[in-house]
């Protein structure tokens, strides 16, 4: 996989909250080639902010993830999106909204979502 202009300088890793918490993160892949941690990210984007080479770390991480086994919560959330259009379960949506005094919301038709995400869900690119 193409790391683009990455020089392995280690700047991103210095700022990465996941690395500083002692977990593997995408910065390990970028800095020393170790393959663990592509799914461990808080989406804080300090790595992107700090990178002197403007590496597109987001795209790199997403492509890396598609080649690795997803953690259960990610897999479940994506399945929810594909089947309902929402990452979280929202069956009782309008009953709950009524209790809070919020107006009724029309949900998206799942057929539309199937047209937008027609792939199998594990596309490689």
């Amino acid at each position: 996989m193409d790391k683009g202009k990455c020089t392995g300088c280690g700047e991103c890793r210095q700022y990465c909250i996941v690395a500083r918490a002692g977990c593997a993160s995408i910065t390990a892949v970028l800095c020393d080639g170790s393959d663990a941690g592509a799914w461990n990210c808080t989406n804080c984007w300090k790595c992107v902010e700090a990178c002197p080479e403007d590496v597109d770390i987001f795209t790199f991480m997403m492509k890396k993830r598609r080649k690795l086994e997803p953690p259960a919560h990610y897999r479940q959330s994506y399945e929810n999106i594909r089947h309902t259009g929402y990452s979280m379960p929202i069956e009782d949506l309008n009953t709950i909204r009524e209790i809070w005094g919020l107006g009724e919301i029309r949900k998206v038709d799942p057929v539309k979502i199937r047209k937008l995400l027609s792939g199998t869900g594990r596309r490689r690119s």
Partner: protein
Amino acid sequence: MERRLLYPGCLVLACLQDYELSARSVLGKIGVELEDMHEFACCASSIAPSFTNEWINLAAYNLALAEEKGMDIVTLCGSCTKTLKDAARILDEDAGQLGRVNRRLTEIGLSYSGRVKVSHIIEVMDERLDEVVAASIVEVGIRVALQHPCNVYRPEELMHFDDPWHPQKMRQVVQAAGIPVVDYDQEDECCGSALLMSEEEPALNLARKKLSSAIKAGAEGMVVSCGNCAMLLKNFQHKICKSAPGLSLPVIFLPQIVGLAMGIPAAEIGMKV
């Protein structure tokens, strides 16, 4: 009164009704009426891009819905804000991608041409600081720490809002409402919430560090303006406190605390009295 579409996102829609309710009440007080965005879908967040390139169709679908109505979008979470702005920029800069997305949108009777502005609630309130000052008539009387939502101002070259290392905009809004803000060591750190998706205990530890730093600085509440931050710091607080009982701290949404300063009744901002 200006009208905009409220894009609540999945998390707020599913379980943070108090955030939506208070956002509607408070923005109403400063001249922005939020309309329901029927049939919106997940923005894609970092979930869909982890599996497929087609994530952009999902984000574009939401932008196209707004464009059909001729209205701009207000978001409540950092990740929705960043994802929708990212997609809008890609579609603006890459005609090939715009064409591919539109072929897909046509199948469901929509199209997108690039005329939708996406703003997070902090941006909307920041644009109307004078109105916030004028509407704030009650002394709230608690000192708060701030949890800045990373994705609203980072990456800077995409978001163009606030200082990417030491964000100030949320502080300006809270102070405009007359609420005292305390500085704390961990203020510029991410909450760590998204790490819950893969590694729960390290995520809880990040939250422990943050809450303990805020409490040490004298904070009596933590103000958040993102559903993800709320999920970890508030909804998981019982787990955070299990091994660290001293870390209990009320977590309040930005429009709730500002709503209190505006004298809005507790029921209209989703707070128990």
